[in-house]
């Protein structure tokens, strides 16, 4: 069909990885569309250099079929994030030292997004209890951002804090929420 298009928007990353491992090179292009700009941004964060960041992304994608053949990847997103970050750190450090380590070592690393699931799945009563236990700054930021759905800038304006302080309170607040919910779950089991 002349106008037939294969829709990949609903295809998961892991499916694309499977296709790529099966020799379907087109999957590499789709993974590029989803991740190249994000990986480039990560490169910029660590390397602070446009050309080196671009090169690192291109090299990573060139190596991707080989890496995926070598490693078992359950979840592509955190894996490729770790690989890119490690490569950037290696490039960054190699400017100053010759320290070597396995940049593709990421199996068994904890998925940093996993803790968020606990917050989403917690019951409302427990969340309310955990939010009430936060310190005043963290509670104000969590409530404004997550419950009232204000942007960073709006939360900063309301609380009189900088955007960086707001982000810090949100991250620390969510970590404390997770810990509180975890403690509560442990107490329930024992």
């Amino acid at each position, binding site marked *: 069909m002349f106008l037939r298009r294969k829709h990949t928007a609903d295809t998961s990353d892991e499916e694309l990885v499977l296709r790529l491992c099966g020799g379907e090179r087109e999957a590499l292009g789709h993974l590029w569309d989803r991740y190249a700009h994000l990986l480039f941004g990560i490169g910029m*964060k660590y390397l602070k250099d446009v050309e080196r960041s671009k090169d690192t992304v291109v090299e990573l994608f060139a190596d991707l079929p080989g890496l995926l053949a070598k490693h078992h990847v359950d979840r592509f*997103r955190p894996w490729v994030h770790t690989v890119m970050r490690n490569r950037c750190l290696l490039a960054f450090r190699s400017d100053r030292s010759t320290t070597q380590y396995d940049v593709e070592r990421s199996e068994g690393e904890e998925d940093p997004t996993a803790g968020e699931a606990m917050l989403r799945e917690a019951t409302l009563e427990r969340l309310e209890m955990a939010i009430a236990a936060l310190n005043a700054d963290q509670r104000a930021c969590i409530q404004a951002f997550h419950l009232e759905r204000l942007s960073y800038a*709006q939360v900063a304006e309301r609380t009189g804090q900088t955007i960086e302080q707001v982000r810090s309170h949100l991250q620390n607040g*969510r970590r404390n929420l997770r810990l509180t919910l975890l403690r509560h779950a442990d107490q329930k089991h024992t």
Partner: protein
Amino acid sequence: MPIRSTPEPFAPGTPPDRDTLLAYAEGRLDDAQQHAVEQHLEADPMLREAMEGMTMPGAMGALPKLDRMRPYTKPWAPWTLAGMLVIVAGAWLILSPILERQEPAMTILPEQPVVADDPIELNIPLEVTEIDAAVEQPESLRIGHLTSDRHIQQAASATSVEREPVPERIIGGSMPKDLGKPPAPPIPEKGPRTVTRLIYLQGFKLAHPDDLRYKDPHNVGPGGSVRARFEDRHAQDAAEDPHRTMGYVPFMDRALTRFKRNDHKGTLEELRHLMEQFPDDVNALFYAGLCCYNLGMYQHARALLHRAATHAVPVFDEEAAWYHALTLERLGEHTAAQEAFGRIAAQGGFYAAQARTMAR
């Protein structure tokens, strides 16, 4: 707010696509859209790191180049190629008589900077008498006021700006001695710098003054020299009449209020004061360049817009390059203008389509 009234408070919605992320980085989203992206930033460490990097100087402009390095493009099927050849041949037969009557096609120069070196003097003094004598151009020739322009806020999505109380007007022609938080001339540095925030005043984009780098304003600027009998500007100022002071944000707010009202002379006079003290302020360079264009002061516009387009703080690089090309066209430098439009079209940025239209 009770938690029960907010469904799934910790669950981000649909992941933002690339365009949304770029719009967020450029401060073009309204509050609700910003919050939606920020929910993902909170939940996704990869996105968080990527956005930090994407707001670094040069990152956004490099994305089109990165796109050209995509590793896999589906090969054309032979029958598709044959079909395309038939279409191209047909189009050629129809269009070739028309094309032969036109000038040769513009040369596209990929991988070149958006603005080429401009041989003109870039630091032309801006005299008050020149501004007074300038004539506002007809509305049809004005630039920088369309809602679709890149430096104009697209929605009601002002990045919150903590406004300082507006003091009295700066007296006469004297320089503002101190504009609150130092109103920054950005000083180019050797290493990369992070411009993390944009602000919008009167709907017009500005680099946040806190993200520009300042040096002590008291020995800066043409016309701001310190007379020999004084040790430095502080001593000179102390011996002279006191000046009224004004913060950078309210100062620019007032200048852009005038710009919005098409009072380009008034805006330019304000910005001239700022540039006397801070000659490399990218916000002032860009809007002064637009004013000069709209007042028919094209040589000034050319110099100012070139400096804004090649500034170390790349906030206006695309817009300034586009308006610089338009200025060259107005100056009758058609070859240089055509080359500039070619470069802008080849870069594939915000003004690429318009540049293609302008190119003959």
